[in-house]
């Protein structure tokens, strides 16, 4: 630090983050509530007639559930949290607070624009919105504005970093800010597919400026973004696990350089893997699918590095607190802290989600589980737990920090985390097995004429687990609301940034450079996607008309 450690006033950054959190949590509230009805429906309890004035069908509710949970909650939470983390770890204000607020309002405006047709049953196309199903144009324009706003967040983070770098030319970038920047740079590269799909296909088509579209081209562009978007959700959880959880566990991060290696590999390998969502698509050559499978196994490597670093850091904390033995230290972690408990529990389920992901990436086995309930089970472990439960865990310290009020109830927080863990284990296990038995996903199973006898014994577990998740979520929202409005005790909290056992000074210099990694990322994308996209765009007649089928 060249300047004195006089910390600047970051109150405006706190307000910005609080604004993002409010939108994120309201979206999650609606999204999770609708999940309850889906879970009950699978067990034959059809409560949709009760929702009729607002929710017109199972699929209307399912569209809201998907869009609000995985597109809106995640994006708003991440934008708020990573701008906060950047300003706090660099100890400087955001580059331009006016821009930062304009970005928030643009993102919120986009959300409202998309929400009008979504709530009005004019965009019951699920969160994947595959054409030729055709939603109202406002849905596509609104979501596009949300993506554009995320690019402005990238701009804010890059300029903030450069402002810091100008004053600190010789210092290694603090790990939290550096990781936040990698996350948004990765996302910006990854979002180009979705942006192209929206700008060149969906928006002109939904506005009637062009007559036709093409389903395969849209799917290729969608999944160009659709896989790395899961790393956009996951990396902020990793940032918490790497840079905050070790401190919360009473220890230190095991290795700062290893953390940097893993994030750079995510930057390079997150995107050229999308065909593993399209293994069963006709119209894409088998060789290209094989190449994407290779890269998908490649991106497993940084996840293994993360697994090692996090467990080693937790062990460091457990031992510092008097833990012994090969595994007994695990019990010595501060399990009474809901923030830590929620995040460690989410890691445990994530291990199973990661292993399931390898099965999805192996195209031989993908033929068994593609588009089955297995996939639903898989992403409820990954985005539904590793990401969502970790984000909840973060808010157990972040919301008290931002409001200045103590968490209303630690015990309620602990009950919430365990209930989510157990409920998700039950629901997701049932969904995995139902998928192996051939039950399709995204289907109103309670009303399907083809329910197989062997599914019937498992379907109630979807409802039981789903109900537990709903109760857990309501406990969470109650705790958050009461913390904000009813908690009287003042909170004295600092952001729990962890130190490292092996610090950034041990990292090779190449890890702090940007250009080689960006060039490598773009090169791999060009190899993996270039030939297929060029062939499709030059040979496809865009003649497919749109349909409203709901």
């Amino acid at each position, binding site marked *: 630090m060249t300047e004195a450690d006089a910390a600047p006033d970051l109150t405006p950054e706190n307000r910005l983050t609080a604004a993002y959190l409010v939108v994120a949590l309201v979206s999650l509230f609606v999204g999770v509530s609708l999940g309850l009805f889906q879970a009950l429906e699978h067990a034959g309890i059809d409560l949709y007639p009760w929702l009729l004035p607002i929710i017109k069908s199972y699929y209307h509710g399912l569209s809201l559930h998907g869009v609000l949970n995985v597109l809106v909650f995640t994006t708003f939470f991440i934008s708020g949290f990573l701008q906060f983390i950047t300003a706090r770890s660099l100890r400087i204000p955001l580059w331009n607070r006016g821009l930062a607020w304009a970005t928030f309002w643009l993102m919120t405006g986009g959300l409202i624009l998309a929400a009008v047709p979504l709530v009005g049953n004019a965009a019951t196309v*699920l969160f994947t919105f595959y054409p030729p199903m055709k939603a109202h144009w406002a849905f596509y324009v609104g979501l596009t504005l949300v993506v554009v706003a995320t690019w402005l967040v990238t701009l804010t983070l890059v300029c903030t970093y450069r402002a810091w770098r100008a004053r600190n030319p010789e210092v290694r970038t603090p790990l939290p800010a550096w990781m936040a920047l990698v996350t948004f740079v990765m996302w910006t590269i990854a979002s180009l597919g979705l942006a192209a799909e929206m700008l060149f296909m969906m928006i002109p088509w939904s506005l009637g400026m062009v007559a036709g579209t093409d389903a395969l081209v849209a799917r290729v562009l969608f999944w160009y973004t659709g896989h790395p978007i899961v790393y956009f959700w996951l990396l902020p959880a990793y940032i918490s696990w790497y840079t905050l959880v070790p401190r919360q566990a009473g220890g230190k991060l095991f290795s700062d350089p290893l953390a940097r290696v893993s994030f750079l590999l995510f930057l390079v390998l997150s995107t050229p893997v999308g065909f593993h969502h399209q293994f069963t698509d006709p119209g894409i050559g088998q060789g290209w699918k094989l190449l994407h499978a290779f890269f998908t*196994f490649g991106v497993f490597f940084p996840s293994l590095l993360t697994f090692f670093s996090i467990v080693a850091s937790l062990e460091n904390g457990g031992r510092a607190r008097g833990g012994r033995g090969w595994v007994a230290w695990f019990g010595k972690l501060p399990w009474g802290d809901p923030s830590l408990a929620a995040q460690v529990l989410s890691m445990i389920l994530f291990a199973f989600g990661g292993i399931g992901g390898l099965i999805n990436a192996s195209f031989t086995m993908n033929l068994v589980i593609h588009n089955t309930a297995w996939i639903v089970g898989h992403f409820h472990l990954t985005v539904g737990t590793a990401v969502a439960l970790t984000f909840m865990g973060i808010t157990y310290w972040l919301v008290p920090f931002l409001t200045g009020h103590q968490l209303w109830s630690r015990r309620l927080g602990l009950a919430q985390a365990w209930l989510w863990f157990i409920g998700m284990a039950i629901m997701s296990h049932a969904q995995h097995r139902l998928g192996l038995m051939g039950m399709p996903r995204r289907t109103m199973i309670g009303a399907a004429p083809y329910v197989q006898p062997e599914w019937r014994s498992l379907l109630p577990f979807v409802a039981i687990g789903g109900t537990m998740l709903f109760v857990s979520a309501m406990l969470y929202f109650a705790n958050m609301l009461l913390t904000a409005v009813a908690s009287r005790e003042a909170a004295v909290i600092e952001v729990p940034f962890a130190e490292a056992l092996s610090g950034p000074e041990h990292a090779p210099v190449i890890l702090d450079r940007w250009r080689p990694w960006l060039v490598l990322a773009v090169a791999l994308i060009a190899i993996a996607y270039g030939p297929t996209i060029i062939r499709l765009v030059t040979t496809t007649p865009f003649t497919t008309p749109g349909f409203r089928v709901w």
Partner: protein
Amino acid sequence: MRRGTTIYLYELFWILPSIAIPVGMLVALVVFTFGAGVHLPGDHGRVEPTAVLATPPFDQPGTVQVGPGQYEVRMVSGIWSFAPNEIRVPAGSTVTFVAASRDVLHGLFIPRANVNVMLIPGQVAHVTTRFDRPGEYPFFCHEYCGIAHHTMWGKVIVEPASKADRHDGDSAS
């Protein structure tokens, strides 16, 4: 990352297996794929999405015997049904599904026969499987295709080989 330290050794002990595990799994995957002859749906050409029902072979959906023990199912999917939605073949048949969609995305999923393919407007889907055991093999649309998506299904009825020979005289059940 600093050589010679304990942490460096720990890192190395973890990094090497972290490379070996995915590489090992990849090799197993590739060996199995070529060894067992697993095929993913590949590129089998286009069909004009607005003219599927006028384009051979989709103008005459149905099951056609193309050789001894070899059948081809020409299938058209549309909201919210498959044509044909009941397919009869004798046990031991090799069946190729040639399928297309005449409106939105659909999927053809026959869990008990390991058939799993997307039906994408504009694309011809082409998958081959074998039905060895007699019985019913239900198939489902496994891609959301609208308000009655959950009613879109059919079945392959695999008849004992001897019975299938007499099938022409049967008035069906």
